[in-house]
């Protein structure tokens, strides 16, 4: 099954989903096609003006273009997703996952889609790591 991961560029979640036999939908995979398939207008930025228009499907015109640009990349991934894993307490708020409003909108869209979803927290010690991994494993095995 195709599993949407949140944060969408998480190494931990990508690895766990693949390890337990599912296909992770990650922002890296989507961006790979973009950065290698065509010339980007302004290299390290990955969002084009056309993407901002495309993002209108997921966020209104009054929403900042940064959110719409991000949604142009992440929105189709949610459309494709059959299940989702959300990891809370992300201690980093910069880079492509640094927009809190986009993250809130993503979570809203996932919940609205009513696909099987599990919400866990970033582990802070080994005990929490064990709980997190066992919850994710049970969830992913239940999807088969």
């Amino acid at each position, binding site marked *: 099954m195709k599993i949407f991961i949140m944060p969408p560029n998480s190494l931990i979640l990508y690895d766990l989903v693949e390890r337990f036999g599912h296909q992770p939908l990650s922002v890296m995979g989507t961006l790979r096609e973009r950065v290698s398939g065509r010339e980007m207008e302004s290299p390290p930025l990955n969002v084009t003006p056309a993407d901002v228009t495309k993002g209108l499907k997921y966020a209104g015109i009054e929403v900042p273009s940064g959110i719409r640009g991000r949604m142009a990349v992440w929105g189709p991934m949610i459309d494709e997703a059959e299940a989702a894993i959300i990891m809370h307490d992300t201690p*980093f708020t910069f880079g492509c996952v640094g927009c809190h409003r986009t993250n809130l909108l993503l979570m809203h869209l996932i919940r609205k889609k009513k696909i099987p979803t599990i919400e866990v927290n970033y582990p802070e010690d080994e005990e929490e790591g*064990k709980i*997190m991994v066992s919850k994710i494993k049970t969830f992913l095995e239940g999807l088969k």
Partner: protein
Amino acid sequence: MIMIAPTSELTPDQLARFIHSLGYEISIKETCYGANIEGDKDLIAKAVPKIRGLDPNRLFIKVRAYPIGDERRCRAHHGSRPGFNQLEKEWMDLPFIEAGLCAVESGEECPEKPKRKRLSVEKLIQIAEEENI
């Protein structure tokens, strides 16, 4: 992208040599955190389980958006690495994930801990008064 957990005794050099020894026609780049591999999808799909088998619970693998040595990202070309901070944070958390993977492998029960309660005002006042004594 293959990342070695801080608890692993593997070095990026050993990892890169192992991947070379598999004999697949894929590009391999040794990095400070592990290695990057690139090539035909089928070959990568064959190589990944073998690479993971080297140290199953301490090697973590994900897809990377930019190709190996891409000038927009490669440090050798002064490329920017906006995603590095997240990788660094997750790298530090990998030992916790390793503990989790070992626990599920051994069939250990991992009951959820009760949520931490917030400190009540009465309790806070009591602590503050104790401190003053």
